[in-house]
Protein backbone atom coordinates (compact mmCIF):
# COMPACT_ATOMS: atom_id res chain seq x y z
CA UNK A 1 0.00 0.00 0.00
CA UNK A 2 1.33 3.43 -0.93
CA UNK A 3 1.16 6.52 1.23
CA UNK A 4 -1.45 9.18 1.74
CA UNK A 5 -0.73 12.89 2.23
CA UNK A 6 -3.45 15.49 2.77
CA UNK A 7 -4.08 19.15 3.34
CA UNK A 8 -7.02 20.46 5.33
CA UNK A 9 -7.70 24.01 6.43
CA UNK A 10 -9.24 24.76 9.80
CA UNK A 11 -12.70 24.08 8.39
CA UNK A 12 -11.63 20.45 8.93
CA UNK A 13 -13.62 18.94 6.05
CA UNK A 14 -10.72 17.10 4.40
CA UNK A 15 -9.31 16.15 7.79
CA UNK A 16 -12.64 14.49 8.68
CA UNK A 17 -12.72 12.74 5.31
CA UNK A 18 -9.20 11.34 5.75
CA UNK A 19 -9.71 10.26 9.35
CA UNK A 20 -12.84 8.32 8.31
CA UNK A 21 -10.78 6.44 5.71
CA UNK A 22 -8.91 4.94 8.62
CA UNK A 23 -5.61 4.89 6.71
CA UNK A 24 -2.28 6.23 7.88
CA UNK A 25 -1.83 9.71 6.43
CA UNK A 26 0.59 12.60 6.73
CA UNK A 27 -0.80 16.12 7.02
CA UNK A 28 0.57 19.14 5.16
CA UNK A 29 0.67 21.82 7.87
CA UNK A 30 -1.60 24.88 7.66
CA UNK A 31 1.19 27.14 8.86
CA UNK A 32 4.16 27.78 6.52
CA UNK A 33 6.33 27.86 9.67
CA UNK A 34 5.86 24.15 10.36
CA UNK A 35 7.93 21.38 8.74
CA UNK A 36 6.61 20.00 5.45
CA UNK A 37 6.22 16.23 4.98
CA UNK A 38 8.66 14.92 2.38
CA UNK A 39 7.48 11.47 1.23
CA UNK A 40 10.13 9.41 -0.57
CA UNK A 41 7.82 6.57 -1.64
CA UNK A 42 4.71 6.52 -3.87
CA UNK A 43 1.75 8.41 -2.38
CA UNK A 44 -1.65 9.85 -3.21
CA UNK A 45 -2.54 13.45 -2.36
CA UNK A 46 -5.91 14.47 -0.89
CA UNK A 47 -6.61 18.17 -1.29
CA UNK A 48 -9.56 20.56 -1.02
CA UNK A 49 -10.24 23.23 -3.68
CA UNK A 50 -10.33 26.97 -3.16
CA UNK A 51 -11.04 28.42 -6.61
CA UNK A 52 -12.74 31.79 -7.04
CA UNK A 53 -15.40 32.29 -9.72
CA UNK A 54 -12.75 32.39 -12.43
CA UNK A 55 -10.97 29.27 -11.27
CA UNK A 56 -7.96 31.09 -9.84
CA UNK A 57 -6.26 29.94 -6.68
CA UNK A 58 -7.77 26.45 -6.71
CA UNK A 59 -4.74 24.83 -5.08
CA UNK A 60 -3.81 26.01 -1.59
CA UNK A 61 -0.41 27.70 -1.23
CA UNK A 62 0.76 25.06 1.23
CA UNK A 63 -0.07 22.28 -1.26
CA UNK A 64 1.87 24.17 -3.92
CA UNK A 65 4.84 24.50 -1.54
CA UNK A 66 4.63 20.77 -0.83
CA UNK A 67 4.60 19.87 -4.53
CA UNK A 68 7.30 22.35 -5.40
CA UNK A 69 9.85 19.88 -4.04
CA UNK A 70 10.77 17.74 -7.09
CA UNK A 71 11.85 14.81 -4.88
CA UNK A 72 8.38 14.77 -3.33
CA UNK A 73 6.58 15.36 -6.59
CA UNK A 74 8.16 12.44 -8.41
CA UNK A 75 6.46 10.09 -5.95
CA UNK A 76 2.98 11.51 -6.48
CA UNK A 77 0.78 8.87 -8.17
CA UNK A 78 -2.69 10.38 -8.05
CA UNK A 79 -4.89 13.04 -6.51
CA UNK A 80 -8.22 12.94 -4.66
CA UNK A 81 -9.98 16.28 -4.55
CA UNK A 82 -12.57 17.74 -2.20
CA UNK A 83 -14.95 20.53 -3.11
CA UNK A 84 -18.57 21.56 -3.37
CA UNK A 85 -20.82 21.05 -6.39
CA UNK A 86 -22.28 24.49 -5.70
CA UNK A 87 -19.20 25.83 -7.47
CA UNK A 88 -20.50 24.37 -10.71
CA UNK A 89 -17.95 23.51 -13.36
CA UNK A 90 -15.18 24.41 -10.90
CA UNK A 91 -16.19 21.63 -8.48
CA UNK A 92 -13.03 20.03 -6.98
CA UNK A 93 -10.90 21.97 -9.47
CA UNK A 94 -7.72 21.53 -7.42
CA UNK A 95 -7.70 17.89 -8.49
CA UNK A 96 -7.68 18.82 -12.17
CA UNK A 97 -4.98 21.46 -11.68
CA UNK A 98 -2.65 19.10 -9.81
CA UNK A 99 -3.39 16.26 -12.28
CA UNK A 100 -2.58 18.47 -15.23
CA UNK A 101 0.57 19.94 -13.71
CA UNK A 102 1.93 16.67 -12.39
CA UNK A 103 0.62 14.30 -15.07
CA UNK A 104 -1.18 12.04 -12.63
CA UNK A 105 -4.82 10.91 -12.64
CA UNK A 106 -7.65 12.39 -10.61
CA UNK A 107 -8.66 9.32 -8.63
CA UNK A 108 -11.82 10.65 -7.01
CA UNK A 109 -13.81 13.77 -6.19
CA UNK A 110 -15.89 14.27 -3.05
CA UNK A 111 -17.93 17.05 -1.48
CA UNK A 112 -17.04 18.70 1.86
CA UNK A 113 -16.23 15.86 4.29
CA UNK A 114 -17.54 13.13 1.98
CA UNK A 115 -20.37 10.61 2.35
CA UNK A 116 -20.30 6.97 3.48
CA UNK A 117 -20.38 5.95 -0.18
CA UNK A 118 -17.35 8.15 -0.88
CA UNK A 119 -15.42 6.59 2.00
CA UNK A 120 -16.19 3.04 0.83
CA UNK A 121 -15.30 3.83 -2.79
CA UNK A 122 -12.02 5.53 -1.92
CA UNK A 123 -10.94 2.75 0.48
CA UNK A 124 -11.71 0.12 -2.12
CA UNK A 125 -10.31 2.21 -4.97
CA UNK A 126 -7.01 2.94 -3.23
CA UNK A 127 -6.58 -0.71 -2.37
CA UNK A 128 -7.10 -1.72 -5.99
CA UNK A 129 -4.97 1.17 -7.26
CA UNK A 130 -1.94 0.28 -5.14
CA UNK A 131 -2.23 -3.43 -5.91
CA UNK A 132 -2.18 -2.69 -9.63
CA UNK A 133 0.50 -0.07 -9.19
CA UNK A 134 2.92 -2.27 -7.28
CA UNK A 135 2.28 -5.38 -9.40
CA UNK A 136 3.10 -3.48 -12.61
CA UNK A 137 5.99 -1.59 -10.99
CA UNK A 138 7.89 -4.80 -10.22
Amino acid sequence: MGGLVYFSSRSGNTQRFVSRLGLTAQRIPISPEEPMPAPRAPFVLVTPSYADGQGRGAVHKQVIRFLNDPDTRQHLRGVIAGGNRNFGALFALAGDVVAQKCRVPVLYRFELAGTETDIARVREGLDRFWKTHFSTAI
Partner: protein
Amino acid sequence: MKDIAQTRPVPRAINWNRLQDDKDLEIWNRLTVNFWLPEKVPLSNDIQSWSQLTEEEQRLTIRVFTGLTLLDTIQNTVGAPALMADAVTPHEEAVLTNIAFMEAVHARSYSSIFSTLCSTAEVDEAFRWSEENAQLQQKSRLILDEYDATANPLRKKVASVFLESFLFYSGFYLPMHWSSRARLTNTADLIRLIIRDEAVHGYYIGYKFQRGLERLSEAERKEIKDFAFALIFDLYDIETRYTETLYDPLGLTEDVKAFLHYNANKALQNLGFESLFPDELCKVNPAIMAALSPNADENHDFFSGSGSSYVIGKAVATEDEDWDF
Protein backbone atom coordinates in the same frame (compact mmCIF):
# COMPACT_ATOMS: atom_id res chain seq x y z
CA MET B 1 -28.29 62.80 29.93
CA LYS B 2 -26.47 59.88 28.47
CA ASP B 3 -25.14 57.21 30.78
CA ILE B 4 -21.45 56.48 30.26
CA ALA B 5 -22.15 52.72 30.20
CA GLN B 6 -24.49 53.18 27.26
CA THR B 7 -22.06 55.19 25.19
CA ARG B 8 -20.81 53.24 22.23
CA PRO B 9 -17.03 52.86 22.37
CA VAL B 10 -15.11 54.16 19.36
CA PRO B 11 -14.15 51.05 17.35
CA ARG B 12 -10.54 50.48 16.39
CA ALA B 13 -9.76 51.20 12.76
CA ILE B 14 -9.63 47.91 10.88
CA ASN B 15 -6.15 46.83 9.82
CA TRP B 16 -6.24 44.13 7.13
CA ASN B 17 -2.50 43.69 7.44
CA ARG B 18 -2.87 42.34 10.98
CA LEU B 19 -5.13 39.30 10.87
CA GLN B 20 -6.27 37.22 13.83
CA ASP B 21 -7.82 34.66 11.49
CA ASP B 22 -6.51 34.08 7.94
CA LYS B 23 -9.91 32.68 6.93
CA ASP B 24 -11.37 36.21 7.10
CA LEU B 25 -9.11 37.49 4.33
CA GLU B 26 -9.47 34.29 2.30
CA ILE B 27 -13.26 34.61 2.34
CA TRP B 28 -13.21 38.38 1.80
CA ASN B 29 -11.14 37.83 -1.34
CA ARG B 30 -13.35 34.99 -2.53
CA LEU B 31 -16.56 36.98 -2.05
CA THR B 32 -15.29 40.20 -3.59
CA VAL B 33 -13.90 38.42 -6.68
CA ASN B 34 -17.23 36.59 -7.05
CA PHE B 35 -19.26 39.84 -6.87
CA TRP B 36 -21.97 40.06 -9.51
CA LEU B 37 -25.19 41.87 -10.36
CA PRO B 38 -28.30 40.48 -12.10
CA GLU B 39 -27.77 42.88 -15.01
CA LYS B 40 -24.84 40.68 -16.07
CA VAL B 41 -27.19 37.81 -16.96
CA PRO B 42 -29.20 38.13 -20.23
CA LEU B 43 -32.52 37.16 -18.67
CA SER B 44 -34.53 38.45 -21.64
CA ASN B 45 -33.26 35.47 -23.64
CA ASP B 46 -35.64 33.39 -21.51
CA ILE B 47 -38.80 35.22 -22.64
CA GLN B 48 -39.62 32.67 -25.32
CA SER B 49 -38.84 29.73 -23.05
CA TRP B 50 -41.06 31.24 -20.35
CA SER B 51 -43.98 31.43 -22.75
CA GLN B 52 -43.65 27.69 -23.37
CA LEU B 53 -44.32 26.82 -19.72
CA THR B 54 -47.90 26.05 -18.79
CA GLU B 55 -49.77 28.54 -16.65
CA GLU B 56 -49.44 26.19 -13.68
CA GLU B 57 -45.69 25.85 -14.20
CA GLN B 58 -45.32 29.61 -14.44
CA ARG B 59 -47.29 30.17 -11.24
CA LEU B 60 -45.22 27.58 -9.41
CA THR B 61 -41.99 29.20 -10.61
CA ILE B 62 -43.05 32.68 -9.49
CA ARG B 63 -44.14 31.37 -6.11
CA VAL B 64 -40.91 29.46 -5.57
CA PHE B 65 -38.96 32.63 -6.37
CA THR B 66 -40.98 34.76 -3.96
CA GLY B 67 -40.23 32.15 -1.28
CA LEU B 68 -36.52 32.45 -2.03
CA THR B 69 -36.84 36.24 -2.01
CA LEU B 70 -38.26 36.08 1.51
CA LEU B 71 -35.31 34.02 2.80
CA ASP B 72 -32.81 36.38 1.14
CA THR B 73 -34.64 39.36 2.64
CA ILE B 74 -34.40 37.82 6.12
CA GLN B 75 -30.73 37.06 5.68
CA ASN B 76 -30.02 40.55 4.32
CA THR B 77 -31.87 42.58 6.93
CA VAL B 78 -31.81 40.36 10.03
CA GLY B 79 -29.51 37.32 9.74
CA ALA B 80 -26.17 38.74 8.65
CA PRO B 81 -26.54 41.91 10.77
CA ALA B 82 -27.39 39.75 13.82
CA LEU B 83 -24.19 37.75 13.30
CA MET B 84 -22.15 40.96 13.14
CA ALA B 85 -22.78 41.61 16.82
CA ASP B 86 -21.05 38.30 17.64
CA ALA B 87 -18.01 38.75 15.36
CA VAL B 88 -14.78 37.90 17.13
CA THR B 89 -12.53 39.80 14.72
CA PRO B 90 -13.11 43.17 12.97
CA HIS B 91 -12.43 41.38 9.68
CA GLU B 92 -15.26 38.93 10.35
CA GLU B 93 -17.56 41.90 10.77
CA ALA B 94 -16.43 43.28 7.42
CA VAL B 95 -17.01 39.91 5.70
CA LEU B 96 -20.52 39.84 7.17
CA THR B 97 -21.29 43.24 5.65
CA ASN B 98 -20.40 41.74 2.28
CA ILE B 99 -22.62 38.73 2.97
CA ALA B 100 -25.48 41.03 4.00
CA PHE B 101 -25.15 43.06 0.81
CA MET B 102 -24.97 40.03 -1.46
CA GLU B 103 -28.18 38.74 0.10
CA ALA B 104 -29.77 42.03 -0.95
CA VAL B 105 -28.42 41.43 -4.48
CA HIS B 106 -29.95 37.95 -4.47
CA ALA B 107 -33.32 39.25 -3.29
CA ARG B 108 -33.15 42.00 -5.90
CA SER B 109 -32.29 39.58 -8.71
CA TYR B 110 -35.58 37.65 -8.34
CA SER B 111 -37.36 40.92 -9.03
CA SER B 112 -35.23 41.29 -12.17
CA ILE B 113 -36.45 37.87 -13.29
CA PHE B 114 -40.04 38.90 -12.56
CA SER B 115 -39.85 42.20 -14.41
CA THR B 116 -38.33 40.45 -17.43
CA LEU B 117 -40.67 37.46 -17.64
CA CYS B 118 -43.91 38.04 -15.75
CA SER B 119 -46.88 40.35 -15.48
CA THR B 120 -47.25 42.64 -12.49
CA ALA B 121 -50.53 41.00 -11.50
CA GLU B 122 -48.98 37.52 -11.43
CA VAL B 123 -46.10 38.75 -9.30
CA ASP B 124 -48.32 40.65 -6.89
CA GLU B 125 -50.40 37.49 -6.46
CA ALA B 126 -47.26 35.47 -5.63
CA PHE B 127 -46.04 37.98 -3.05
CA ARG B 128 -49.48 37.83 -1.43
CA TRP B 129 -49.20 34.03 -1.49
CA SER B 130 -45.80 34.18 0.24
CA GLU B 131 -47.29 36.24 3.06
CA GLU B 132 -50.03 33.70 3.58
CA ASN B 133 -48.20 30.43 2.99
CA ALA B 134 -48.09 28.62 6.31
CA GLN B 135 -44.83 26.72 5.79
CA LEU B 136 -42.95 29.74 4.51
CA GLN B 137 -44.07 31.74 7.51
CA GLN B 138 -43.28 28.87 9.93
CA LYS B 139 -39.72 28.34 8.75
CA SER B 140 -39.08 32.08 8.78
CA ARG B 141 -40.38 32.24 12.33
CA LEU B 142 -38.10 29.41 13.53
CA ILE B 143 -35.05 31.13 12.05
CA LEU B 144 -36.00 34.61 13.27
CA ASP B 145 -36.48 33.34 16.81
CA GLU B 146 -32.83 32.28 16.81
CA TYR B 147 -31.66 35.58 15.35
CA ASP B 148 -33.27 37.38 18.28
CA ALA B 149 -30.61 39.49 19.92
CA THR B 150 -30.78 37.62 23.21
CA ALA B 151 -30.10 34.26 21.59
CA ASN B 152 -26.87 32.32 21.89
CA PRO B 153 -24.25 33.36 19.27
CA LEU B 154 -23.70 29.74 18.23
CA ARG B 155 -27.40 29.06 17.87
CA LYS B 156 -27.64 32.08 15.57
CA LYS B 157 -24.87 30.61 13.42
CA VAL B 158 -26.63 27.23 13.28
CA ALA B 159 -29.83 28.96 12.12
CA SER B 160 -27.89 30.97 9.55
CA VAL B 161 -26.14 27.90 8.09
CA PHE B 162 -29.45 26.02 7.92
CA LEU B 163 -31.05 28.92 6.08
CA GLU B 164 -28.20 29.28 3.59
CA SER B 165 -27.26 25.63 3.11
CA PHE B 166 -30.62 23.89 3.52
CA LEU B 167 -33.77 26.04 3.33
CA PHE B 168 -32.99 27.52 -0.08
CA TYR B 169 -32.86 24.16 -1.83
CA SER B 170 -36.55 23.33 -2.03
CA GLY B 171 -36.62 26.47 -4.20
CA PHE B 172 -33.32 26.07 -6.06
CA TYR B 173 -34.51 22.68 -7.26
CA LEU B 174 -37.02 24.16 -9.70
CA PRO B 175 -34.71 26.31 -11.87
CA MET B 176 -32.26 23.37 -11.95
CA HIS B 177 -35.14 21.14 -13.09
CA TRP B 178 -36.10 23.59 -15.86
CA SER B 179 -32.48 23.96 -16.87
CA SER B 180 -32.07 20.18 -17.19
CA ARG B 181 -34.91 20.34 -19.75
CA ALA B 182 -33.32 23.26 -21.59
CA ARG B 183 -35.89 25.68 -20.15
CA LEU B 184 -35.11 29.08 -18.60
CA THR B 185 -31.39 28.46 -18.98
CA ASN B 186 -30.37 32.10 -18.41
CA THR B 187 -32.42 32.24 -15.25
CA ALA B 188 -30.61 29.06 -14.18
CA ASP B 189 -27.28 30.78 -14.81
CA LEU B 190 -28.30 33.54 -12.42
CA ILE B 191 -29.50 31.03 -9.82
CA ARG B 192 -26.16 29.21 -10.06
CA LEU B 193 -24.43 32.48 -9.10
CA ILE B 194 -26.64 32.64 -6.03
CA ILE B 195 -25.97 28.96 -5.24
CA ARG B 196 -22.23 29.61 -5.44
CA ASP B 197 -22.47 32.56 -3.03
CA GLU B 198 -24.59 30.60 -0.57
CA ALA B 199 -21.95 27.85 -0.50
CA VAL B 200 -19.29 30.35 0.58
CA HIS B 201 -21.61 31.91 3.17
CA GLY B 202 -22.54 28.52 4.66
CA TYR B 203 -18.92 27.42 4.69
CA TYR B 204 -17.66 30.60 6.39
CA ILE B 205 -20.38 30.87 9.02
CA GLY B 206 -20.03 27.13 9.66
CA TYR B 207 -16.30 27.64 10.08
CA LYS B 208 -16.86 30.44 12.60
CA PHE B 209 -19.36 28.19 14.38
CA GLN B 210 -16.70 25.48 14.76
CA ARG B 211 -14.21 28.00 16.17
CA GLY B 212 -16.80 29.10 18.73
CA LEU B 213 -17.69 25.53 19.61
CA GLU B 214 -14.05 24.72 20.39
CA ARG B 215 -14.12 27.17 23.26
CA LEU B 216 -17.01 25.47 25.02
CA SER B 217 -17.08 22.65 27.55
CA GLU B 218 -18.04 19.14 26.49
CA ALA B 219 -21.51 19.54 28.03
CA GLU B 220 -22.12 22.86 26.27
CA ARG B 221 -20.97 21.41 22.96
CA LYS B 222 -23.42 18.56 23.34
CA GLU B 223 -26.21 20.97 24.12
CA ILE B 224 -25.55 23.00 20.94
CA LYS B 225 -25.32 19.85 18.84
CA ASP B 226 -28.62 18.57 20.20
CA PHE B 227 -30.15 21.94 19.44
CA ALA B 228 -28.80 21.85 15.85
CA PHE B 229 -30.20 18.39 15.15
CA ALA B 230 -33.56 19.29 16.73
CA LEU B 231 -33.75 22.44 14.60
CA ILE B 232 -32.92 20.63 11.36
CA PHE B 233 -35.63 18.05 12.17
CA ASP B 234 -38.19 20.82 12.70
CA LEU B 235 -37.13 22.64 9.53
CA TYR B 236 -37.12 19.40 7.56
CA ASP B 237 -40.65 18.67 8.70
CA ILE B 238 -41.79 22.07 7.39
CA GLU B 239 -39.77 21.68 4.20
CA THR B 240 -41.35 18.34 3.33
CA ARG B 241 -44.83 19.86 3.67
CA TYR B 242 -43.77 22.93 1.67
CA THR B 243 -42.34 20.63 -1.00
CA GLU B 244 -45.52 18.55 -1.20
CA THR B 245 -47.72 21.63 -1.54
CA LEU B 246 -45.61 23.02 -4.34
CA TYR B 247 -44.40 20.00 -6.26
CA ASP B 248 -47.12 17.33 -5.90
CA PRO B 249 -49.04 18.65 -8.95
CA LEU B 250 -45.93 18.14 -11.11
CA GLY B 251 -45.12 14.75 -9.60
CA LEU B 252 -41.68 15.96 -8.49
CA THR B 253 -41.99 15.74 -4.71
CA GLU B 254 -39.88 12.62 -4.17
CA ASP B 255 -37.16 13.97 -6.42
CA VAL B 256 -37.10 17.26 -4.48
CA LYS B 257 -36.94 15.38 -1.17
CA ALA B 258 -33.76 13.55 -2.19
CA PHE B 259 -32.29 16.97 -2.97
CA LEU B 260 -33.38 18.21 0.48
CA HIS B 261 -31.71 15.26 2.24
CA TYR B 262 -28.51 15.76 0.29
CA ASN B 263 -28.38 19.45 1.17
CA ALA B 264 -29.35 18.93 4.83
CA ASN B 265 -26.30 16.67 5.15
CA LYS B 266 -24.09 19.32 3.55
CA ALA B 267 -25.44 21.96 5.92
CA LEU B 268 -24.54 19.72 8.88
CA GLN B 269 -21.07 19.15 7.41
CA ASN B 270 -20.56 22.92 7.21
CA LEU B 271 -21.09 22.94 10.98
CA GLY B 272 -18.58 20.11 11.38
CA PHE B 273 -21.28 17.54 12.23
CA GLU B 274 -21.94 14.13 10.72
CA SER B 275 -24.68 13.52 8.17
CA LEU B 276 -28.25 12.89 9.21
CA PHE B 277 -29.71 11.18 6.14
CA PRO B 278 -28.25 7.89 4.86
CA ASP B 279 -26.81 7.93 1.33
CA GLU B 280 -29.70 5.91 -0.12
CA LEU B 281 -32.08 8.80 0.70
CA CYS B 282 -29.75 11.31 -0.96
CA LYS B 283 -29.74 9.90 -4.47
CA VAL B 284 -30.40 13.12 -6.33
CA ASN B 285 -31.59 12.86 -9.92
CA PRO B 286 -28.40 12.95 -12.03
CA ALA B 287 -30.02 15.52 -14.32
CA ILE B 288 -30.32 17.88 -11.35
CA MET B 289 -26.70 17.26 -10.32
CA ALA B 290 -25.58 17.95 -13.88
CA ALA B 291 -27.62 21.18 -13.91
CA LEU B 292 -26.02 22.19 -10.61
CA SER B 293 -22.47 21.69 -11.81
CA PRO B 294 -22.37 21.49 -15.59
CA ASN B 295 -19.21 19.94 -17.06
CA ALA B 296 -17.93 19.02 -13.61
CA ASP B 297 -18.09 15.33 -14.41
CA GLU B 298 -16.71 15.60 -17.92
CA ASN B 299 -13.52 13.87 -16.85
CA HIS B 300 -14.28 10.54 -15.28
CA ASP B 301 -12.26 9.80 -12.21
CA PHE B 302 -10.41 6.56 -11.67
CA PHE B 303 -12.45 5.07 -8.86
CA SER B 304 -16.04 5.66 -9.99
CA GLY B 305 -15.79 5.23 -13.74
CA SER B 306 -13.68 3.10 -15.98
CA GLY B 307 -10.07 4.18 -15.67
CA SER B 308 -9.58 4.02 -19.41
CA SER B 309 -11.99 6.88 -20.04
CA TYR B 310 -9.93 9.15 -17.85
CA VAL B 311 -8.45 12.20 -19.52
CA ILE B 312 -5.92 14.51 -17.91
CA GLY B 313 -7.71 17.66 -16.73
CA LYS B 314 -8.02 20.53 -19.14
CA ALA B 315 -5.40 23.27 -18.88
CA VAL B 316 -6.31 25.84 -16.26
CA ALA B 317 -4.60 29.16 -15.80
CA THR B 318 -2.90 29.34 -12.43
CA GLU B 319 -1.53 32.68 -11.52
CA ASP B 320 0.65 31.87 -8.58
CA GLU B 321 4.19 32.76 -9.48
CA ASP B 322 5.49 30.05 -7.14
CA TRP B 323 3.51 27.38 -8.99
CA ASP B 324 6.48 26.45 -11.15
CA PHE B 325 8.02 23.07 -10.63
